Structures are given as C-alpha cells and as structure tokens.
C-alpha cells in the first residue's frame, strides 16, 4: 500500500460523497430532475453548496444506534414501572393525545417529503442531507408511536390516531398544513418545512411539548424529546443553509423565497395556536405562557435571525406584527372553541381552576380579565347548574387554515374577523388577512381544500347526525370525547390515586 496521507474531514467527505454524482448522458438531465425548474428557482452552481454536517452513512448509523439503544431502555423501564402514575394529573394526558393525533402524522409526512427532496434536489450535498432528515423523521414518528403506545394502553383518545388524523375536523388543520407543503415543489418544501417550520417555528412546538412533559412527570416523552434534539439541530442547520444558498445563487430567487417565507410563517403560526392552548390551558403544571414563549422564541430569536438574513434582502415575514399581537389572544380563543366542541373531539377539555385563572390574569394582564375570564366564569356557572355548554351547531371554517372562524379583528377583540375572496363564481371565507393572501396567491390550490364541515354537510362523513360523524371518526363515544370531569380517564385516575393512598397506608 502507498504511504497514507491524512485527509481533512472536509476533503475526505468530498471524495467519498460529493464525487459520486455525474452528469447523465443517456437520459436528459431535466428528465432525471424533472421538478428542478418549475418553481422558478435558479441555481447556477450546486458545487457552491457547503455541507454543514459531513456525515458519512456509517457515522450516521453509529450515532443514531447509540441514541436508540438508550431511548428504548428508558421506554421499557417507563412501561414496566407504570410511569403514567408519576404524572402530575390525568388532564396532562390530553396534551399527548393532541400530539399523537396532530403532530406525529406530520413527522411521517416529513419523512416522505424529505425522501422526495432527497431524490429530486439536483445537488448531491442537499440531496443526501435531505435523505438523512427523511430517516430522522421516520425515527421521530416511530419513537413517538412507541412512547405513546404505553399511554394508549391506559387512556382513551389515542387508539385510532392515524384514522382520526385523516378525518377529524380539527386535525385537518395540521394535516392540510403538511399536505400543502408536500404538494409544493421541492424548493418550496425546503423553505416551508426545512426553514420556516424547522428553523423559525420548531422551538415553539417542540420545546413547549417537551418542557411540558418534563414539568408534568412524563419521563417517556421528555426522553424522546431529548433524544430527538440532536436530530433537530441538524434539521435547523439544513433549513438555514438552504435559504442562504438559494438567496446567494441568484437575485431572482429573492421574491420567490420571500413569498414562501411570508406564506409559511402564517401557516405555521395558525397551526401553533394548538400549542398555545396546550401551554396555557392543558398543562396541569405550566412552564410559561404562550405569550412568553412567543416573545422568546419568535420575537427575540426570530428577530435576530431576520436581521442576519437582511443582508440578502430578505425581510421578516409579513403579518409578524399581527401574529405577535395575537399572542395575547390566541390560546384563549382556541380553548374556547375546543371547550364548546369537546363532544366532537378525541380529547377532554375543562374550565381552569381559580388558581389557573389567576395565573392567566397575571400572564395576560391586558386581555384575560377583560375579554376571557367573564366567559369562562359564565360557563362555570352553567356547569354548576348542570348545563355544561356544548355548541351543537357546526362552525364555519377558514378555507386556508381550516380553523373555525373564531378569531377577532386585529386591534378589536370584540369583533370576529371575516375576510372573503371570489374565485370561479364561489365565495371563500378566511379568518385573517394572512389566510386570505395565501388563498389569493394560489386559488386553484386552496379551492381544493377538504373542509371538514363542508364535507359533513355534503354527506361524506358517515351520516347526517353528529353521532354518525363521530362514529365515522371511530371515536368511542362517552370515553374519548366530552368534559374531563366524569370521563373514564378521570375515574380511573382517581381510583389509582385512591388505591395509592391506601397502599401508602
């Protein structure tokens, strides 16, 4: 053998990986990469791509296998020791129900979406990075299913998570978000998920759920959260590298990328409203308010990110100011929607206790007492009279985000915000200027939306009555739905706690 020179990591990675590509000559390049041009993105030189990780496959396997060994040891021990008994309260489990039915299927969509870009991005560097992210996202959905498998054995609402994700009205909010990203071109997907979601907004999804788990005794979920953290940091790096690369490659890319940043910021903001409500209302032991999380993770962190990107001509997303103003309201408005419609949801709701109301007053001094406490107190009175309020009408949905039209006008929390657009002789309704703009830019796309309420009225969801629809959702009526008080989950929890007191003597 020849004398061995030491290669630098970068050089070695380049030889082992970047050199694999070749210019096809038996098939035309545009047939091999058929989706590279239609979005209008111009890339002149893929070799300018700087690989942020330089992970060879063997290194990937080694790191990931080590993490999996540790994670599954914790999951086994959690199940063996009935870790659910260590939770702060049975109400906490509802946050995990929302996670499995609303978020885990998105991890799966990300897995397949990154397989798509891992095949179709014409540069070998980002293509491999996308393939690794595709693997990671498969990891996330599978470890979540395994973690929550134990909860499914003891609590309601988890049992048909994928079936529900494809059908249930509020789950069409996260589902349509990801369907939108998956059906965009490969570059839009990278900006939508890789940049806007993973880089700008993921801290507002992941950190609250995982910190919520840590604060509420959910050792299993917090372990997969920690375990996924190093994957997430790779994903964030890929997202930021992609946006910088596109902006550096051609000035014509700027308006396209800016439009996607605007769109996907607003789409993400609407989905994150579910997290807002989880943080402020669903966690028995609270971490911080949504408002505080928004200030830290979007206003501060996002602010410095966009300052950094300003040198490419990119400006902060349109309506960021509106979203920031909404942080005072969104959790209260969302929880009110779910409180009214919990007979049609696969998780339970409840009214906050006195202490919780006081916490909300303290965290939301400008809005809670003025706009939201009176309604909650009225509902509490109704409960006392045995008239727990359920709304038996079906709500109008925003065509873009698919959330019931319960949000208020910017600057006027007493008036519901309505916007409309005409397209091909039909009127479409929106909850906000952000959602209307998104529709107006791609009306052919958003006119296709599978809106759950429309579908129910058209008879496509199992029948004419609410009960027919819920059975079509495969909800176990009287168990998965309705108020937390009196639910089988709560009764079982109370029995466990009572037995524990007896055992403790």
């Amino acid at each position, binding site marked *: *053998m020849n004398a061995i020179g030491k290669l630098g990591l970068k050089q070695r990675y380049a030889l082992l990986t970047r050199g694999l590509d070749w210019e096809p000559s038996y098939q035309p390049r545009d047939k*091999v990469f058929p989706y590279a041009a239609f979005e209008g993105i111009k890339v002149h030189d893929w070799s300018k791509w700087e690989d942020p990780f330089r992970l060879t496959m063997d290194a990937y396997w080694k790191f990931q296998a080590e993490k999996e060994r540790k994670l599954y040891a914790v999951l086994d021990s959690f199940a063996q020791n009935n870790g659910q008994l260590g939770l702060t309260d049975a109400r906490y489990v509802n946050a995990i129900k929302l996670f499995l039915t609303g978020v885990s299927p998105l991890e799966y969509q990300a897995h397949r979406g990154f397989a798509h870009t891992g095949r179709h991005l014409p540069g070998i560097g980002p293509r491999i990075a996308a393939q690794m992210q595709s693997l990671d996202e498969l990891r996330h959905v599978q470890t979540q299913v395994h973690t929550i498998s134990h909860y499914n054995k*003891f609590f309601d609402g988890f049992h048909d998570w994928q079936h529900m994700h494809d059908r249930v009205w509020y789950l069409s909010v996260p589902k349509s978000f990801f369907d939108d990203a998956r059906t965009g071109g*490969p570059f839009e997907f990278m900006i939508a998920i890789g940049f806007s979601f993973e880089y700008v907004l993921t801290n507002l999804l992941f950190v609250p759920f995982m910190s919520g788990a840590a604060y509420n005794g959910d050792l299993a979920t917090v372990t997969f959260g920690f375990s996924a953290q190093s994957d997430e940091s790779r994903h964030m790096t890929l997202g930021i590298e992609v946006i910088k690369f596109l902006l550096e490659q051609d000035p014509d890319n700027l308006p396209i990328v800016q439009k996607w940043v605007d769109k996907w910021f607003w789409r993400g903001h609407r989905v994150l409203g579910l997290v807002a409500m989880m943080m402020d209302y669903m966690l028995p032991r609270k971490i911080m308010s949504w408002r505080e999380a928004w200030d830290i993770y979007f206003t501060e962190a996002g602010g410095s990110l966009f300052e950094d990107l300003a040198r490419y001509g990119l400006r902060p997303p349109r309506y960021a100011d509106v979203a920031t103003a909404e942080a005072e309201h969104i959790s209260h408005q969302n929880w009110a929607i779910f409180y009214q419609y919990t007979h049609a949801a696969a998780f339970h709701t409840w009214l906050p206790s006195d202490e919780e109301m006081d916490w909300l007053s303290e965290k939301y001094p400008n809005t809670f007492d003025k706009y939201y406490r009176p309604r909650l107190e009225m509902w509490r009175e109704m409960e006392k009279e045995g008239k727990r309020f359920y709304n038996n009408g079906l709500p109008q949905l925003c065509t873009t985000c698919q959330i019931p039209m319960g949000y208020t006008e910017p600057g006027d929390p007493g008036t519901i915000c309505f916007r409309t657009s005409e397209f091909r002789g039909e009127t479409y309704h929106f909850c906000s200027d952000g959602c209307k703009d998104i529709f107006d830019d791609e009306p052919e796309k958003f006119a296709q939306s599978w809106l759950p309420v429309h579908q129910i009225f058209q008879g496509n969801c199992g029948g004419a009555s609410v009960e027919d629809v819920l059975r079509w959702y495969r909800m176990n009526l009287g168990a998965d739905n309705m108020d937390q008080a009196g639910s089988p989950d709560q009764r079982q929890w109370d029995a*466990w706690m009572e037995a524990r007191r007896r055992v403790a003597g």
Partner: protein
Amino acid sequence: MTIDIKTLKVEPRRQTYANIARRFGVDKPASRYEEATLDIQATANFHYKPLWGADHWHFDEGRTAVVMRDWYALRDPRQYYYATYNIARANQYQTTERNFEFVEKRALLALMEPAWRDTVEFYLLPLRHAEWAANMNGADMCDRGYGTAVTAPCLFAGVDHLAMAQIIGRIGLALDGNTGTSLERARERWMTAPEWQEIRRLAEDTLVIGDWFEQFVAQNLCIDGVLYPLVYGRFDAEGQRAGGAGVSMLTEFMSDWSAENARWADAVIKGAAAESPENRALISGWFATWSRRAADAWRPLAMRVLGEAAGAAAADEASGALTARARKLGLDV
C-alpha cells in the same frame, strides 16, 4: 421468607392501537415493528393535488400498475423499523471498521498482484457511481411508493447503497494513498470506458422509470441480483488467486448485505405477484425486460475481468441463478 412488594394493581384497558387490533381480529400486544409500521401513512381526504404532478395525490396507490387489496400485506421479514435497522447496520459496520484496520495494519492490499490490483481498480471503484444511482432509486421508491411496510425499507436500502458507495470510496483511498486519484480515474471510466457504458446507461434508465414497482423489480431484484453475485462472488473468487483477500475483507459488508436485502426484496415481490394473475403478469414482464438488460449490461465487464469465455459464462450463470430465483418467487419466467 418471602418478601411481598406492595404495588398498585394497574390493569391496561387495551393492548394495542385499534388499527392493529382490527387487523389481527383481537386486541393482543403487538410488536414494535407492527405498531410503528402498519397503517401509519395517511390514506384519505387529501387536500391538494401536487403542483409537481396533479394526476395523483402525494400518497397514491395509482403510481404503480400493481394492485394490492392491502399494501401492508408486503411486510419486511427482517421487521426493521428505524431503531432495529440502525442498530443492525451500526453493528454490521463495526466489523467493516475492524476489517479496514486489520487490512491496513497488515498491508494486505499490497499483497495483490499488480495486474489484479489494476483489475480491482477497474471493476470495483466505478461501481460506486452505480451504487449512487441505486441510492436515488431507493429514495424515489420511498417517495412514490404506497404504505410504510414497503416504503420505509426502500429508504433503508437507498441509504445502504450510499454506505456501500462510501465503502468503495474508502477502498479507493486505501489503494491510492488517500490522494483520490483512483477515484478520479474511476469516474473517468464510469463516464467513458466501453465496459462501463451499458451499466451506466442501465443506471440512468432506472432513474426515470415511471412505475415505482417496476423500478423496485429493476433495482432490487434484477440489477442487485446480477451485480452482487458477479462482483462480490465471481470477481472476488478470481481475486483469491491473486492475493485479493484484503479486498474480500473490505467488501464483506456487501456480501452480507445483498443476502439480507434479497430476503426483503423477495418477500415483497413474491407477495405482490401472489396477489393476482394480473400482478404476476406485470411483474413477470418487468422481470423479463430488466433481468435481460442487467445481464447484458454486465457481460462486457465480466469478460474484461474474468476473460472472454469465463466472463460470458459468469454473466449467463448469474442470469440463470436470477431466473431460478424469480421462478421461486412465483414469476412466469
């Protein structure tokens, strides 16, 4: 004396997710493979047609002419999900790593006869580009396929091919003293050497196959089914007489991998062909086309490595073994 540990009696209310219980007709504990695989892909009520192909949904059974009542019938006999897959490969690669150390320490590659060393450079190193096409095909099948039972292992196979391309690259660096010159030469051969051109044409043609299950048959059965037995079987055996034991050690991963991956590919193809006479006819037709092309593409290289007569015979032999394998899978051949 017995010690009675006081515990709460906590009874589960169900054993597994409802979709699994429905499949098995009974609520009993399910394996991690089953819970993390079956039914986890969305199947209904999609919102928008893809801008990159409005003729299908992004998850759509119609991207292949193969028809299955249940795509989850095509399970992976290895029962790989992310964790078991990664742990298996990490363990496997530990051996590869040790073999590299061993071969380097004993300078085993230097024991090769110079002529054979040139031959190894000629047949092995350009192969990493074919592995790269196989990688893209794996990602492509994962993207376009239907049902996690098939699509997840397609991505696993895809990144396995990347790993094998990188092993070949490491062998090149071991041969050229970490300069990369052998890899440059190999790329030149991949692009221009006559013995490689039909192989490259075949690789490029698989990148544009419209039906993903046809791509599955072409890549996982036909191409892999000719390439691995020839390169890591026949070529490698030839090298034994010329001091090539070091190369055998460094490519042990590929031999083990191809046997393991074939178990999965066979299960998928056998299951799909057994589903209906229509599927069997389709898959048999694809097999006829792509197995012939694979054998023809590899024949010139086999002749260069093994000599004209022996090379042609080896290609025919590989093709014959593949046909026998296809017959066992229920294909009409």
